[in-house]
């Protein structure tokens, strides 16, 4: 296997790594590589911080191991290689009436990455997390390949396990039934945070997501828009071809006045009494995928995303976070508020029952302090932050947020005693 020296980043582009990458195109090449010199796997690098970085070391790019291996139309169990993207599964299978049971906000995420971060989607309150729908996975450790089933400790250490038990080569996924490849979306305004949380609590829709205006202050603090959706069959115009951001944008593009004006306009995009629209599935589930490389809008310095979850009783913590965010004038238009259920598959899985808030911040002075303050509020509220998004947290705080860290560490140490799978995130947070 030839290794390529490259500089690479996560989706946030604020942290960088340089090291050697291999990109096997065949399963046999992956097996040979892992037998010779095991290294952590990376996919399409859609985690934001350093979960997908191994600075000064080696990593295995899994994007060419991306094939469908088998599908049982009776049970809906699909076997795929780990480099397959969730968007591709949806594109091919939705017309046949099936969808990944859980889909995160980007279709470019790979199956391997979705398992290793135990990602969630707009249906977490009902369907739980991604790895809860994994029927089995093929894991390659330094000792060779093995099949891992749910219910085992090794599975719990692999789901949401940040790639530390070995390389996920393939997986069997239990897909969910979809009525077709369109969605019916009902969009409603929420004028205040309380109104927003009320709408989220009462929602009975399969898919729910809230956009929040993180620049709104005073009376309007926490205002936003709730989208509730169901899949269906029908005919809608084909999605327009994706566009690309051709270069790193200059700073004024996301300056405070521009973001405030954009958010105000975006909020008024839907009528005050709400509306129902029909969209192709991709447009609802992966709205930003239509703009390739949108992370370049944040310019050369990149950006950070803060995502936390706090228990349902801690709405006041959310209010305090939103106050700080609005006062900082650092927020970008990308801010999401959702209700989470209790579903989680692994020791280090992010989800817990509560509200989850995600906000993007351009990498500017002041962000480190702001995010530190937000983390503190989340910690005091008994919440936790999402490691797939994190690039700034400290190890003590994170380990305290993940009470099963010890169980995870014990399994990881067994599976990878030589610590060959460590990544920048694991080292930064002292997780191993």
């Amino acid at each position, binding site marked *: 296997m*030839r*290794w*390529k*020296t490259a500089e690479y980043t996560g989706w946030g582009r604020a942290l960088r790594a340089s090291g050697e990458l*291999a*990109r*096997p*195109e*065949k*399963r*046999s*090449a992956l097996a040979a590589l892992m037998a010779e010199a095991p290294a952590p796997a990376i996919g399409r690098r859609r985690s934001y911080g350093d979960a997908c970085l191994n600075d000064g070391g080696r990593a295995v790019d899994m994007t*060419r191991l991306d*094939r*469908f*291996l*088998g*599908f049982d139309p009776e049970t809906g169990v699909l076997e795929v*290689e780990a480099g397959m993207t969730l968007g591709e599964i949806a594109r*091919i299978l939705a017309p046949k009436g099936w969808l990944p049971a859980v889909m995160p906000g980007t279709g470019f995420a790979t199956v391997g990455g979705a398992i290793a971060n135990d990602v969630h989607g707009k249906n977490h309150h009902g369907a739980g997390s991604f790895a809860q729908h994994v029927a089995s996975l093929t894991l390659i450790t330094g000792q060779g390949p093995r099949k891992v089933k749910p219910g085992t400790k090794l599975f719990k250490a692999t789901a949401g396990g940040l790639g530390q038990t070995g390389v996920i080569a393939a997986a069997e996924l239990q897909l969910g039934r979809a009525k077709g490849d369109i969605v019916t979306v009902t969009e409603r305004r929420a004028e205040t945070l309380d109104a927003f949380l009320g709408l989220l609590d009462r929602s009975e829709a399969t898919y729910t997501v809230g956009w929040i205006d993180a620049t709104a202050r005073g009376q309007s603090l926490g205002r936003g828009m709730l989208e509730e959706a169901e899949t269906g069959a029908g005919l809608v115009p084909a999605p327009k071809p994706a566009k690309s951001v051709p270069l790193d944008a200059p700073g004024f593009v996301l300056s405070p006045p521009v973001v405030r004006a954009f958010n105000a306009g975006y909020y008024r995009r839907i009528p005050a009494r709400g509306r129902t629209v029909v969209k192709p599935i991709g447009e609802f589930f992966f709205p930003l995928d239509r703009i390739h490389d949108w992370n370049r809008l944040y310019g050369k310095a990149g950006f950070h995303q803060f995502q936390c979850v706090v228990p349902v009783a801690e709405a006041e913590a959310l209010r305090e976070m939103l106050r700080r965010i609005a006062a900082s004038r650092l927020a970008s238009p990308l801010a999401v508020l959702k209700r989470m259920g209790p579903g989680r598959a692994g020791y280090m899985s992010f989800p817990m029952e509560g509200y989850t808030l995600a906000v993007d911040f351009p990498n500017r002075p002041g962000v480190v302090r702001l995010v530190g303050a937000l983390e503190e509020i989340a910690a005091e509220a008994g919440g936790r932050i999402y490691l797939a998004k994190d690039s700034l947290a400290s190890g003590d705080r994170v380990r305290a947020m993940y009470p099963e860290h010890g169980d995870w560490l014990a399994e990881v140490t067994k599976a990878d005693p030589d610590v060959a799978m460590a990544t920048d995130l694991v080292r930064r947070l002292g997780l191993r």
Partner: protein
Amino acid sequence: MSETWLILGATSSMARALARALAERGDGLVLAGRDGDDLAALAADCRMRGARLAEPAAFDARRPEGFEALIARVAREAGVLNAAVFVGSMPDQAEIDADPALIDGTVIDSFSGPARVLQMLAPEIEARGAGTVVGVGSVAGDRGRLGNYVYGGAKAGFHAYLSGLRNRLTRSGGHVVTVKPGPVDTAMTWGLPSLPFMTTPETVARDILRAVARRRNVIYSAWIWWAIMLVIRLIPEPLFKKLSI
């Protein structure tokens, strides 16, 4: 009418991209190569994407005893028979300098092996009065250069062969497309010193499908390589022999 493709060297990433695109049209695919496990995975992938037929078949350019069975397999399919050739090998020129016997293998892999298969397939295409052969050559075959002239020589031979085969098949309604890709982002180029105007396997596959539909004769992928190779071909030999490009 239903179309069936014999894809030689189907485990290459360019072949994979083409096979997937053909699968989504519902075409039949006989995926020929050496790595049976990998071909089985590709066949499963293509069936999932809508291929009417997708099955692995054993093919090794250096084992002509298997060619008969391969031709017999595709000849069983009714409708239009097509073929796409992605095989070839490019040992490092320095390795060849040390062991000139490597030349034989390079020529068999990149030219004479696949040419023998196409030669056996040609009567089938003529009898059916339709069918397209896509031969993947290389810009390296346009002019012998210091860095890889054995590979270039084999590909130049393959280009000339494809030109002749086109001349032959056009008389009975068949067609041959010669594809000359520049550097493509594949396992073959991964980790090599950075190459200019690198393209992706998906782009090459798209260019091939377009060329087949429009019955183009010779295409470059990406098109910029047409301009680059035009310049390189126009450099007079007395000057060219002193360059290292």
